[in-house]
């Protein structure tokens, strides 16, 4: 049913956990199935230097969150912001059509974390 990449990320999640004093946090829940992803990022000079995730839900949700961290660590935030659900699916090779929402949730968690950083920058910019 699932690719070996999905199974591998479920069995051996990459970057699981939560960063202390993150630059940004994205925490999203799918209200229908209750799948949830919480993503924390460290940003230094516009680059994502570290990312960690926590997730609950079906196997592709855990796998999508896990693979997302591998896609964004080391990336400039502008480039990370351009990632789409298709990039997450491609990194997992394939998701069953009924599980595309897992990749969507991962991207929403990323957007949430990046929004959180932008908002902070705007606030700090306004103070200057």
């Amino acid at each position, binding site marked *: 049913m699932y690719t070996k990449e999905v*199974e591998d990320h479920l069995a051996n999640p990459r970057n699981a956990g939560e960063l202390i004093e993150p630059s940004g946090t994205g925490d999203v829940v799918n209200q229908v199935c209750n799948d949830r992803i919480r993503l924390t990022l460290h940003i230094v000079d516009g680059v994502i230097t570290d990312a960690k995730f926590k997730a*609950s839900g079906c196997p592709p949700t855990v796998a999508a969150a896990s693979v997302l961290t591998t896609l964004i660590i080391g990336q400039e935030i502008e480039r990370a912001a351009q990632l789409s659900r298709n990039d997450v699916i491609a990194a997992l090779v394939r998701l069953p059509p009924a599980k595309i929402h897992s990749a969507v949730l991962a991207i929403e968690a990323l957007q949430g974390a990046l929004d959180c950083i932008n908002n902070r920058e705007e606030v700090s910019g306004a103070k200057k």
Partner: protein
Amino acid sequence: MTASMKVYLDNSATTLVAPEVIESMLPYFSGDIGNASSVHSFGQRAKAAVETARRQIAELIKAAPSEIVFVSGGTEADNLAIRGIAEAHSATGRHIITSAIEHPAVLATCEALESSGFRVTYAPVSSAGVVDPQQIREAIKDDTILVSIMQANNEIGTVQPLEEIGRFVRERRRAGASNLHFHTDAVQSAGKIPIDVDDLGVDLLSLTAHKFHGPKGAGALYVKKGTRLGKLFYGGHHERDRRPGTENVPGIVGLGRAADLAAQELSERSDRMRGLRNYLEDSLKQRLTDMKINGDGAPRLPNVSNVSFAGVDGESVLINLDLKGIAVSTGAACSSGSLEPSHVLKALALTKEEIRGSVRFSLGAFTTQAEIDYAIAVTVEAVKRLRELAPAAEESARASL
């Protein structure tokens, strides 16, 4: 315990074929190849083998051999029973009673009949997963032609009070409801608990070989002598005109042998499976918090354990176990962002979270202590790891768009 250990704990789905059963079937693939309807000696040997199997099945459920109709399996047996009664007795009534936790072979057949003008009452179950016989009694109306209640549930293993329901059915029949019939789907229970069709008071009983270490594709419907039953198929006079089609001789021989073995070893197998199942449940309870055994508190089959692990997704547990060589099943599948919960667990009034975290372990006659020890260790590790991976409940999350 080794990483490469293969542990099959999905015996409610299907079972391995016992070596004695395979051996009994082999001659009928190449040597004794006759069509049981043929007059020549090949045909007569096949016919004799089919009749031996008929006696073996009859013995397992304490019926007469002439009351056994061979079919392709549980789904066909359920269809033949329900549609057969509906067709033969619709002139006297068009009401059927079943339960909310039946197998889809029963539920979907009843739903199909509803669309052709039958009324169906779906009796609820208690939170322990048991039908209330009094509710069945009250649901029986003058136009009720069939009560169909499974003997044991396929997801949680709860055993239903058939004797009591059978008494109510007989009571109504004595009071004049001569067209009232009682069917049970005994697909999960046959070969695992003792069955006596007279004690149960049933007119029809479905069973299938592959749930008790026989081959797939061979099942039987018990039809009490004198029961008028319509047909699903047309084209021959096999099985006393009840089920046309050339008999699946190797399958039927395997079904018979599997029934014979199950009958001989019933109490021994059942005691062993119950011991291992209880050990599995006790060990999980000792090592994990926040878990619930579904159907606990009701009489249950000895080989089934349906557990809800709070805070985890059953499918994630399933895949983690599968990667370690352990086969189980789950009652909930998340699909297109919606949760499609099992109708059985929904009928038990479990919370969405309990349904989501449900995992069914089902043991077979060949399950070993070492396999259960391995399954316990891997399950505990997987559930703990998935719980650690989950975001803390108290932190707030934004709703996904």
